[in-house]
């Protein structure tokens, strides 16, 4: 019996040592929820004040599920290049990314107020024409044809265009044009459209979209027209060549 005491004592020391830390404090309680699991995302894509960060990061809450899932996979697999996203997602499977996409697509969050942008009347007219009518002479469809009459996207693959920062949209136009946004997807509809647009046109569209209020109780439109679905087959089939 006497011999047991030091042995037990040593065992306790060994355990404490193995644990490597003195756990006087109670472990943090972690909710078993998706909201907790996507905390790394909301540092940039959440609601908190983003002043000083260029107000660049796009809102993802309420965007169509298929769109979000495609983008998550594109970032992870290097088809859409943005290093912070690639590093964040590198160890995650399709199944888990889909779960994240579903979470954000159904997340309801208030939209930010429209950006205050001083736009000359001529620029406003230019933007409105391209957004609502496109330019058939250059085979440029209206934005509304794919992104919905309310510009809130089309389920399940096309993102909404309202409530996004102007600088984010300008950056995406630039990336579509240079081929940096979707590497290896030259057949993709949006890069062909962006390449047709002038810098003046893209900056007018981005400024105009960012200054529009988001309609109440709106969401993605139901589906693409047969013509656009064919033209943009690349995204309809998952955005990924597999």
């Amino acid at each position, binding site marked *: 019996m006497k011999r047991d005491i030091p042995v037990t004592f040593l065992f306790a020391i*060994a*355990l404490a*040592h*193995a*644990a*490597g*830390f*003195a*756990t*006087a*404090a*109670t*472990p*943090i*309680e*972690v909710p078993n929820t998706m909201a*907790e*699991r996507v*905390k*790394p*995302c*909301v*540092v*940039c894509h959440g609601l908190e004040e983003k002043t000083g*960060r260029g107000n660049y*990061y796009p809102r993802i809450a309420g965007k169509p599920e298929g769109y979000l899932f495609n983008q998550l996979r594109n970032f*992870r*697999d*290097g*088809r859409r290049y943005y*290093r*912070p996203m*690639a*590093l*964040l*997602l*590198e*160890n*995650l*499977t399709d*199944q*888990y990314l889909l*779960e994240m996409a579903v979470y954000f697509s159904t997340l309801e969050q208030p939209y930010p107020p429209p950006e205050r942008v001083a736009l000359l009347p001529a620029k406003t007219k230019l933007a409105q024409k391209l957004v609502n009518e496109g330019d058939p002479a250059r085979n440029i469809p209206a934005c509304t044809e794919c992104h919905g009459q309310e510009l809130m996207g089309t389920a399940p693959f096309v993102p909404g265009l309202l409530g996004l920062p102007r600088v984010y949209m300008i950056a995406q136009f630039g990336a579509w044009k240079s081929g940096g946004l979707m590497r290896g997807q030259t057949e993709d509809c949006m890069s062909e459209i962006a390449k047709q647009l002038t810098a003046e046109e893209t900056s007018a569209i981005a400024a105009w979209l960012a200054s529009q209020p988001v309609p109440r109780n709106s969401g993605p439109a139901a589906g693409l027209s047969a013509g656009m679905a064919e033209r943009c087959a690349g995204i309809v089939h998952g955005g*990924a060549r597999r």
Partner: protein
Amino acid sequence: MRRRSAAAAILCLAGFAWPGMSSALTGAAPLEEKARAGKAAPAEQRRIRGAYLARAANCMGCHTARAGRPYAGGRSLSTPFGTFITTNITPDMATGIGGWNEEDFWKAMHEGKSRDGRPLYPAFPYTEYTKITREDSDAIFAHLQSLSPVSQKNPSSRIDFPYDFEPLLILWRAVYFKPGVYQPDSLKSREWNRGAYLVQGLGHCSACHTERNPLAVVRGAYDEDSSGAQIMGSNWYAPSLTSSAEAGSAKWPMGEIIRLLTTGVSRLATTSGPMAEVVGQSLQHLTKEDARAMAVYLKSLPESNPRPKAGAPALTEEVQKLFRQGAGIYKRHCQDCHGDAGQGAPGIYPPLAGNRAVTMNPPVNVIRSVLNGGYPPVTAGNPRPYGMPPFAQTLNDGEVALVLSYIRNTWGNRASFVTRAQVDKSREGIH
């Protein structure tokens, strides 16, 4: 390290199985596969075994480009010696290894020589694969040959001067590379030997966990004791597996070692970066027996000489003031998950108090974690991991340095300051 005798080498090269060895090293295949294999023809059994061994050796990890076709190569590995582009090892005749036979494959694995006899660069870890038995090499080859051929021509590696000078490679090999199949230690258990075989051979752990200076002969000997090293061409440090201040597991309970290796998380540590990839692609697929054998071996490794530590700062009034600033940043950005006493939520959010990854030198991994965040790998044992947010967009270099210096010197932690320059260097580190 013991070297095997020349006689055994000749036997192996001639393709004879060495009886004692194969029984000691044969790992159990997963049960369902075993059942299938039991009924299958010997060739099919060998292929199934080969698929398992290829997982354990994580061939796919390097021989697959990001989102590319498995085993078709094309992944680029940046090293200080140049950029290596991995090869296509599917059985395509023109662009893969469709024209190879078992002997060619063995020559690459065991001797580090390509089919035409030219020496290979040790970016391909033949320095470890040489320990693999002929039987296992043949099984892996059978698996690779059973894959669908993928026609994919990859660009050539771009090796920098002077490393592209072949006589240098030949000299390096003469000094540092000793071919030889793993020799079981008869004084140790069968389980320990299996673990050693997995760690030293198939798992090629020392490819990262040991300083590796191919060709840079003057910079120090190739050290076989897994002593920790900055991973070639990246801003990750692969901690020593033999130091209790780094990733040595001598004092860990067996269960936690196994958990970390197979699920990517444990109560005492969380995998990230290249190790997360290894767990996700390879180690989580190990049989229970093999994972345990690996843990038995790792736990048995004797303590090595610790690396010289950069000293912790003296707690002057000025230093305390900096720590108070760091504490403020911690409270705002870190405390929610890691707790007011650095206690975390073991297995979910790693405790920072007493966490070796926090106090390790060099501090590159902990800097990377703060800048880039990340998730541990999705595994069967941890299918929906919790993650760490990236702070590169939120905190500037000075703030990262302050908060890390504080975390490294509170709740019983003691380690050197993290400098602004160190953080800056990590920002643009190669992936």
